[in-house]
């Protein structure tokens, strides 16, 4: 299981870093024509903090850190959304559509809220089980808790945008939907990390600590951008209606 979790984390780390590079290239091409893109910069900051976090975690797992079943579950639950979204981005970079329109609300989409609630309840139960013998909560775990809240808020704003678009288009953007779920699942991964760190299963080393603390301002910046786009106080490269603006970016 340790290796499976390691491979999953390494894959995610590679995916994030790759997307960071793609965004840098995109920003470089469009810089002169469109000016500064806070969305692009925030994405780069996110990609190069989330990516290294997963790479670092994966490497440590590969080198002997004991991977937990909750860690594996969190990565596997987040993987379809993350990888699906990344492949769509790759398609867009290659000149393709980079998105799929899901007409109406199919059953699997309608079931997502219920599945999410079940997943979260199960996680809370599992967390209680892990901490049944008590735990130690220290400053080293704080960034992971902060990231859980920040990613949850980002997911919230992205979800509001998707709901706005659904009402307007009577359907869903696959890319937008995938990204909406990527952030909460990432948040859950950090929560699981904090849980295992508090229970003593994981030891927070210096590398991970630096990366996670850097991820906090990056997440604040990304949340600031996403919220600004959502409430209409900020415009970026993708101009248009507020809801559409964000959807076309993701």
């Amino acid at each position, binding site marked *: 299981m340790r290796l499976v979790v390691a491979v999953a984390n390494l894959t995610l780390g590679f995916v994030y870093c790759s997307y960071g590079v793609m965004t840098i290239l995109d920003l470089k091409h469009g810089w002169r024509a469109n000016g500064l893109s806070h969305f692009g910069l925030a994405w780069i900051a996110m990609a190069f903090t989330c990516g290294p976090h997963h790479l670092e975690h994966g490497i440590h797992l590969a080198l002997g850190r004991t991977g937990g079943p909750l860690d594996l579950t969190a990565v596997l639950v987040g993987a379809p959304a993350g990888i699906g979204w990344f492949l769509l981005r790759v398609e867009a970079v290659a000149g393709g559509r980079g998105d799929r329109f899901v007409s109406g609300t199919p059953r699997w989409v309608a079931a997502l809220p219920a599945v999410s609630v079940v997943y979260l309840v199960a996680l809370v139960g599992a967390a209680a089980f892990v901490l049944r013998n008590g735990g130690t*909560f*220290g*400053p*080293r775990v*704080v*960034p992971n*808790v*902060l990231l859980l*809240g*920040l990613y949850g808020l980002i997911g919230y704003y992205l979800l509001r945008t998707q709901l706005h678009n659904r009402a307007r288009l009577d359907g869903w953007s696959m890319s937008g939907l995938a990204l909406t779920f990527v952030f909460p699942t990432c948040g859950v991964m950090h929560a699981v990390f904090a849980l295992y760190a508090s229970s003593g299963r994981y030891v927070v080393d210096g590398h991970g*600590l630096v990366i996670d*603390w850097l991820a*906090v*301002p990056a997440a*604040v910046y990304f*949340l*600031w951008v996403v*919220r*600004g786009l959502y409430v209409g*106080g900020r415009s970026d490269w993708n101009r248009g209606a507020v809801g559409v603006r964000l959807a076309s970016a993701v």
Partner: protein
Amino acid sequence: MFPPARSGLTRCVVANRRRRRTPDVVAVTVAAWLRVGIAITAAAVGAAPHVLTTRQTALFVLLGLVWVPWTVVVLFAAERSGSQWALLGGPIGDVVALFAVEVLTPSATVAMVAASLVVVAFAAYTVGRAFAGGLAAASITMAVVAQALVPSSARADTGVLVSFAFAALAIVLLLDRTSAVQFRTSADAARLRGTADAVLTHIADSVIVTDADGVVVGCNPASERLLGRPARELVGLPCATALGLRHDDRVLDCSRGCVLLGAGAELGEDVWRGDRERRQPVLASATAVFDDDGRVLEVVHSLRDITRLKEAEEAKTLFLATASHELKTPLTVIRGFVELLRDEIDVDARALALETVHRRTIELGGIIDRLLLSSRIEAGRVELLVTTVAVLPLVEERVIAMASTTGREIRLDVAPDVAGAAGDPAALATVLDHLIENAVKYSPDGGAIEVTVAGGSAVTFTVTDQGIGMDAEQLAHCFEKFWQAESSDVRRFGGTGIGLYIVRSLVNGMGGRVWATSRPGSGTSVHVELAVAASEPPEVERERGEATMIREFMRQIGVPDGSE
């Protein structure tokens, strides 16, 4: 009575002082970002050591899980201008966080007290002295409380707290004062700018600002109207190209600086723009704006279109020439016959001389009446009493009188169904007299003059001659004051050029309308349309005798007829 301008300005400043201070949005936003950064850094620093005391662990967990989220909330609140969460919540959160540090890390007390000063200073700058004063008091209290909570060995020197209190007081007062002055200056500048914008937008004069090199950098809406180009096209053009001013026949050369600046005329220079065919007379002046070293920064040009003024001057000159000519002609005849009467002449010649003097005197009276009426119309002192006019008897009376006076045949055709017209009888009579007189004057070769009155939804009077007629441009101007078809008409036909102006003014005053149709050489028809009166016309005496003469006299001098 209005107070002097200086007093008015002072009152505005007082009003501004009472107005709520607008926070510096940029400062609040920058501070919010800084606060997030500091909170994250502080929490991250606490995570670095592997071993922490219980107090330190509690402190850094608190900073990370409470202060960091709080600063993020404040950051988002700062995006809304004037948000109380950002203005008040940020500094309050800071002070509480500093208190936590003071309690949990006594060795950092002095540093935290110094940090409190920064927070108080920021609050004084962005919110005001009341809040900052309260915050300073709270900080001092918290520092004292913190000292009571920490072990006595770790307590800070009392002098530090006293110094902090004085420093906080001084900072609050100074920054509040600075902020208030800045706000007042900014409000005054905004108000002055608003006033200047309003003046420049609505002023009738064109104001054009050029830089020291004579390139247009701004202009007001009146400039767009005067120069016939939008501001965006004017900005960036050289002054000479944009304004195109000429003095006599030469273009004003601005290549060596603004010529108008050196002109020295207080009220402006008489210049013109356009081409020879369509000259636009302009009164131009310029004033320079200097920098502190006395160099010209900008030149403010003011241009006033004086086309109408010039036209009025020309009309006045024409009027004086015409009136003089008109008055001189009968006067010359009268003087000749009076000199003749002083000699011994036979009875027939004497009778002829007296008759001629009488006729010319009446003619002079008519000219003076017209001039007087024109000036009364101009001054708005002619009052018309619109009532029901019995059309047929009035028109018959004026046609007979004018036929008798002019010796010309005038045909009258009144439709049988004509109702009473809504008008002033005296004014309508004057209108008909002027129209018939004009028809006679401008058909010197004879030809029938026809007066028709048509009924229907309105009463329309038409006076038609077979005279010289007018072209389209002449028709467009024929109702203007002192206008005649050609300047040579003054000598050829005589007259003051105010007859049709009087007609238009009186008809408009009666709520009607007047227009003319004509072709050169084919005669002219002037139409007057009045509304149908609501009530039936009164029975009018056909023979009025003395009463008619009095009314006529009163009509001529513009007195409303009391018998109506």
